[in-house]
């Protein structure tokens, strides 16, 4: 028989209470909870359009989720994914006019590289603050988010604004700098391949390389890392650069593969979701895409609920939150049994 400790029982009860409350709220809104669930799963994961859309959304979540997983493994809490993503996209867009004339096979990788570099620089600033001056990386990365948002705001009203000068947005990327669409009739771009490659690369880094070992040791026991000759400050700096690089890559992939131009709020909320993705994947690079896809499908399904049912939009967020919570609780359960 399954024996649960006290914490697990409390968590399960809280979860059950949440679910009941949710059902009640949906019923109050005049909808059948079953229908809502059917739409959530059906439109999120089971139709061609829904599936493609979920994959589109899972690309930036995977890339940023990988970055968060890397930094969290080292015990460094990068909350600045949003800022790193924006700066990555902005730097790449600033390079776009130079890269435009080049052949696509050369220009596109350089564009992605510029985005990666931009994110790495933004992460690296937080890294220097932490490694050199002992600043708390959580505060530093959050503050850098605000700076990045305002900087991009200014850029698309100034130097990077489209020549028409009407809307606060950049010019559209030329076709040679756009990631090709993989399947006709969808918005799914070759960014999916970039994300898949990033998964493999990060997995290799974490599971096979010496650097990945140093990351894990530092995250689990910084004193033992020092004892072994690893410098936690160097690890903190480098992992913030790497984490930022992946976020920057996500930013330019999002622009080049989906939106085509830089505009305000084009990737809002990705940073926070990336943390949830990484935690749900237990910081394992191979589970990050799975968790990202789950979240993406949830978003697509929620959109459908908002569109097709009488459930008010705020309630959609409540449903999302409850499902994520449920997953986290279920994840804790087997761990609690071990103890």
């Amino acid at each position, binding site marked *: 028989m399954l024996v649960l400790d006290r914490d697990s029982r409390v968590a399960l009860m809280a979860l059950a209470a949440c679910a009941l409350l949710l059902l009640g709220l949906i019923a109050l809104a005049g909808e059948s909870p079953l229908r809502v669930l059917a739409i959530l799963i059906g439109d999120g994961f089971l139709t061609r359009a829904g599936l493609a859309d979920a994959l589109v959304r899972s690309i930036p979540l995977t890339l940023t989720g990988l970055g968060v997983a890397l930094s969290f493994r080292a015990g460094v809490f990068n909350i600045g994914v949003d800022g790193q993503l924006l700066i990555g996209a902005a730097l790449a867009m600033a390079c776009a006019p130079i890269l435009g004339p080049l052949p696509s096979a050369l220009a596109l990788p350089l564009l992605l590289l510029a985005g990666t570099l931009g994110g790495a620089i933004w992460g690296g600033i937080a890294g220097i603050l932490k490694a050199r001056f002992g600043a708390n990386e959580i505060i530093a990365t959050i503050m850098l988010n605000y700076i990045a948002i305002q900087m991009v705001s200014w850029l698309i009203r100034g130097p990077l604004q489209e020549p028409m000068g009407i809307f606060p947005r950049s010019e559209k990327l030329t076709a040679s700098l756009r990631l090709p669409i993989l399947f006709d009739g969808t918005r799914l771009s070759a960014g999916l391949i970039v994300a898949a490659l990033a998964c493999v690369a990060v997995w290799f880094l974490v599971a*096979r*390389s*010496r650097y*990945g*070992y*140093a990351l*894990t*040791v530092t995250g*689990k*026991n910084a*004193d*033992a890392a*020092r*004892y*072994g*000759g*690893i*410098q936690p400050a160097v690890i903190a700096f480098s992992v913030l650069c790497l984490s930022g690089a992946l976020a920057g890559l996500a930013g330019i992939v999002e622009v080049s593969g989906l939106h085509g131009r830089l505009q305000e709020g084009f990737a809002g909320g990705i940073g926070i979701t990336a943390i949830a993705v990484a935690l749900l994947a237990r910081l394992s690079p191979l589970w990050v895409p799975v968790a990202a896809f789950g979240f993406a499908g949830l978003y697509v399904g929620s959109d459908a609920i908002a569109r097709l049912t009488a459930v008010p939009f705020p309630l959609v967020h409540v449903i999302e939150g409850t499902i994520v919570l449920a997953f986290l609780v279920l994840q804790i359960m087997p761990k609690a049994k071990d103890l």
Partner: protein
Amino acid sequence: MTVPVLELTRLSKRYGEVTAVAGLSLKLEPGEVVALLGENGAGKSTVVNMITGMTRPDTGQIHLQGKEVHLDTPRDALDRGIGVVHQHYALVGNFTVAETLALGRAGPGVLDRKVLHADVRRVAERIGMQMDPAALVGSLDVAGQQRVEILKALSRKVSLLVLDEPTAVLSPEDAARLFDVVRALRADGVAILMVTHRLADVFAVCDRAAVMHAGHLVCDLPVASATKQGLISAMISGNTDMAQLPGLPVQANVLPDRPPTPVSDTPIRVSVRNLKLLRANGSQAVQGLGFDIRAGEIMALAGIDGNGQSELVQCLAGLNLPDDGTAEICGCRSDGHWTPRLLRNAGVAHVPDDRRRYGIISDLSLSANMMLSHFFSPRYGRTVLDRARARDDTRRAIDEYDIRTTGPDQPIGRLSGGNQQKLVLARELLAGPRVILAAHPSRGLDIRTIGAVQDILRRQRDAGAAILLVSADLDEIRALADRVVVLAAGTAFGPVAMADTDMAQIGAWMAGHA
């Protein structure tokens, strides 16, 4: 006739095969200060734990104020008026002194700080102690924190106060101030049991000295009729013949025959000059320390725990820089580049004293832990880790050191302390080190493994390694060391060749008595 505050009758406690305390009887009268002396492992801590309700005796009785009591939890002991100041303080740095004293006693609702502060001042003044109730505990030095612990104990009604190694971390001036407090408490009629290693404490403030050796109480006599040499001899050998006869010189212990090791011509591997080290809290751990260790030599660093051994080993391992003076190992100098990575590459192995903190990563597998010390050597690859080789090395270590485990992939946290220690040893000795910093290498191991570890260290020495052996165990020092340095109370005695000294001298040094 007064009723004794505390009376222990034939207390015994066994842990598995080991008898920690055997038939101990001890009496404390009101207003009496009794020193409980003994080497590490003599059973003092077990006695303290039984008095304070941390462990229950197997047999024997405890009487408080003439009534038999069963102390099942620390709470029971507290409620019956037994206060204790542990060697390691349990304080909240962000709390003020007054808040600390309110912790666990204040009821729900708003704290009345005025009343609290007045309470603290009243208790402090009663024993002639200076204490600002509004000071943050974290801002106090060790001596100040100890005073807070004493106040904490006294803020309840206590008839017995247990002080566990109270002077181990104090400067002489702070120790003198502590003794004033002890005298004030004695005048108040509080009985005090002071667990200590230092003879100076005994003669400064105690009325009686009780000496434990290997679980037995070997002598219990008024301090006025005790001698330093006698107490030392009782602590080391359990021999009480001379404890009460003043003036007799202590016979030199006969050292086991050992082949004299001709090391005077081998190269110097470790060199320490005029070294000064501070503890994390700013107090002085070591000063003016100087010694050399040559290849093919074991230098013992003797002393009671907490006298700067950890700081010295961490400094030599590259984890800390000296606060003054220099250290030099295999051509690396502490005034130049001095990092764990550099020293490990130069061939330094380090068996840390705090294994759980530095030596292992509990969540990771045995083979992942195996790689920790060889991270910067090419042994397991430069970029890509050679995990197969780490697993092979681990498997060999499991066989060779008889590590009880399900295999190289088991998380090391699941192993017993002794088995963890064996893996740490196997890892450190894996690559044929030139210098071995071994802090308590046999701590937590069973007798058989201790012998094996000592054999391994001897073989490493014969193969030409320079070894610094940190130990508080005189038997181990006698069995292994070629020369010895003793750290006590911030000063260093020696180094001296083992052939030119005896256990009594080393024991006296360890007790801070030149």
